[in-house]
């Protein structure tokens, strides 16, 4: 008898969790005129890069997060790192969300140099990026660097599980994406905003 009671208690508890609406989604607002960001199922690495470009240029964090695994880690260039040299997904998304809040016309270009495999994982090595936040006629934040992206397959999708950031140049006024993550506010007074340094 005790066994039945315990079983019923356990079952009721589980059903109660499911039934009380704690997993329900909220209703979105009616879709407005926001950008429609294309997202293609990343069955190949190049599609994942294409998705990152599209979502970064639209400054929409959702599709960026969709391209990362849940155990994703971002590693800073050793000379950008502060107390933490590696960030987890939550911390990185928090910083990118803040970066994407800057009102600007954004462009991102990748330069593919090298790729390879590590067992079942694959990577782009020395992948160049050039991210520009154009805020006015003369004011632009130029974010330039290289990274190595490590991909792992989740079902049919290649998702990024490690991002290792590396500085490309020490030209004044040019910063890495890691530095921009640490200093995401590109408003007045930001060191990242320069006067068309590379234009």
């Amino acid at each position, binding site marked *: 008898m005790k*066994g*039945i009671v*315990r*079983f019923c208690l*356990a079952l009721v*508890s*589980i059903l109660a969790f*499911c039934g009380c609406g*704690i*997993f329900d*989604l*909220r209703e*979105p*607002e009616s*879709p*407005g*005129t*926001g950008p*429609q*960001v*294309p997202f*293609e*199922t990343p*069955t190949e690495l190049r599609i994942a890069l294409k998705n990152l470009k599209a979502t970064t240029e639209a400054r*929409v964090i*959702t599709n960026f997060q969709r391209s990362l695994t849940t155990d994703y*880690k971002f*590693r800073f*260039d*050793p*000379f950008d*790192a502060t*107390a933490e*040299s*590696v960030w987890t997904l939550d911390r990185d998304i*928090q910083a990118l*969300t*803040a970066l994407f*809040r800057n009102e600007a016309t954004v462009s991102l270009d990748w330069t593919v140099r*090298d*790729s390879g*495999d*590590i067992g079942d994982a694959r*990577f782009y*090595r*020395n992948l160049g990026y050039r991210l520009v936040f154009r805020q006015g006629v003369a004011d632009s934040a130029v974010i330039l660097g290289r990274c190595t992206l*490590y991909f792992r397959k989740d*079902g*049919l*999708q290649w998702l990024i599980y*490690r991002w290792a950031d*590396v*500085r490309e140049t*020490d030209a004044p006024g040019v*910063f890495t994406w890691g*530095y921009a993550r640490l*200093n*995401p*506010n590109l408003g007045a007074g930001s*060191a990242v905003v320069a006067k068309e340094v590379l234009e």
Partner: protein
Amino acid sequence: MLGPEVLEQDANLGHDPPFAEFIGREGGLLETTRLDRSGDPPLALATWVERSIYGWRTRGVEKGAAAPGRFEIRFLIAFSLLAGALLWMAPRPAAAQGGGAGRDTSQAGNILDRLDFHPTYQSSYSVNRTSRSWDQGLTVNRRLGNFDFNNSWSLGLRQDEAQNDLRSKRGSMKLNLDYDLRDLGGWTFGLDGDFRRDSQLSSFQDRIENKSNFGLETTSSLPEQILHSVLPFAREFSLSTGASLGYNEEQSINRRTSRIDSTMVSGLFQHYDLALAGNVRKKVRFTSTMSRDLRAGDSETRQRVSADGELIEEVKEKTENSSQRWEGSVEWKPVEKFRMNTMGRWIHEVNEYWDALANSSEGGQESKDGRDRNIQARLEWNPGPDMGLKGDLTRSDVEGDYSLQARDFNKHTTRGTMEGRLKLPVFLGPLQATELQASYTGDETESSLEGTADYKQLNRKLRTVLRRQLGSKVQISGTNEISLLRYLYVDRSNDRDEQRFFTDGVLIYNPSQKFNGLLNVNWGKRQTVNIPSAKATNNNTTETYKVSGEVGYKRGAIAVNQRYTVQADYTFYDFNETNNSIVRTNEVMTTFSDRIGTGLALQVQHQYQFRDSGKYVELYEGGPRSYTPTSEETRHMMTLSANYPLIKQLRIEGRQMFDRRQNRVVSSGRVTTRDRGEFSLRADFSHTFQSGMVVQASFQKTESTTEKNYWTVRAAMQRNF
């Protein structure tokens, strides 16, 4: 090094700062010379030891600044020699007189045995695509009478051409000599010393960080004796206290093309701690540790422009760093089947340091006020082998305020987990012996970081697993999972929900020793809902259907296995029907393995994959959806490997892989073919020598058609002398 494991290793760089000497560049402001102390006879031996260990020393790391660390190196070496001499002269341990637990050294062969002096040395070397690293460690622990001597060294060298030719050296040393006054109320007096050296050089920037501490310390159990005499009921309590006083020195140099910053901090430190632990009526166990650290000193900071070495700023300030810490736990175990734990932590730290505000033209004395509070409660109930319940509740608050940088943050997290397991009783008929496991995790995090929008994150997950053995040949299991991730921003600009469902069923059928079979059915759904109107157009749902089967046959050393997989991913956009798409994959993987003779193992594996993808949109508004493939990919991958043990300790493996992928654009019929070939030869060595030395190593050379050929080497050894 590109392997993920190295990323983890790199992740530790910041937590284990190290030793390394700085080697200056020609023409720079940093000047490095070899040590030359030949005219200093009393320190000739010390110099030789120092050179052997470091190879190089920095002289006048930054012009105008005193060369740091020379005093402590001399002090440490002298201290080590003194300690060694003391140990040499000290009376032999009781074991030699036949009375102790130590080894009998009177009959030992070599000088280390005669001295009962047994250091442990570890070394590991690793090479990968772009990096190489070498780590070494030496530990010496020696107990002689009332003396307790502990000394450890570590040295790590690393190069990585993929990180702007990064060259990193890190090292540390810890030294402790305690004298235990057993007849004087359990007092222990000792000397403590440690230093760390870290240098990182790259194409664009160099950084050096050095830290040294030397001090006197004492611990005592006298308060425990007083406690026991004053409170007789507290006989099962232990109480100890400790204190230390010493000198510390920290140096930091950061050099970029445009300028150089250097900071030197030195001063005195104090440390006090009090630890209390005990049992109450054998059902309650508690611990409590309190400590306080204080470092006060002088800070000297210089900034220079590299073009002409001009000093642009020089700052001298008083510094004071302090921290208070408390950690405690209580465990209540009234009966064997029930246990309750509570753990708590409280830390308050105030740190002052020079912040050069990297990449900015300004710098200043930064003051960080950090607070960390954490409390956790756990409850475990195990009424029997077939049932168990465990619950955790955690609250964590982390806050930090900066006086200079705009990086104030706080994070408050509440997390609860509940896990249960149950094996259904016999009288439940067909459900009997079914194992049920369920777990629920919920957490709520409020996070704010200066310069970003405050937000709250909710995470909920429920997971159930059912497992049932049907006779001796069939086993079934099912897993269900539902989760919700919710972001709530103060300004609602990035509010979003993500809901996931996951159902997985597995049937395992093993009719005999020779045959095995498996059937797996899987369904998943992931729905992303952006709340703000401007982002709602990207709301989407992805549904995944997957069926896979596996059959295997094994006879003697021959084994054949085949796996079939069919999968389809449907993506639906809630407000953008034209973006809907499907990706479908069919895959067959065949594996054949055999063993020839006594040692040669062969394996052949072939993978065939066909994938197509395209739009999945309504034929007309409100009508049925139709799939139109736009691209197709066919892939064949063949892998052959042979593995042979040359001797017991050495195994070699050859592996050849060929991969062909053909992509076809359906609309134009254009076909792109990509081929990839790879050959690797690998040797693995593992052996424990008679002396006790353990060596493990693997060497692999990989030749690839798509990237530069590369070596992968991992070697490690450990020797207890």
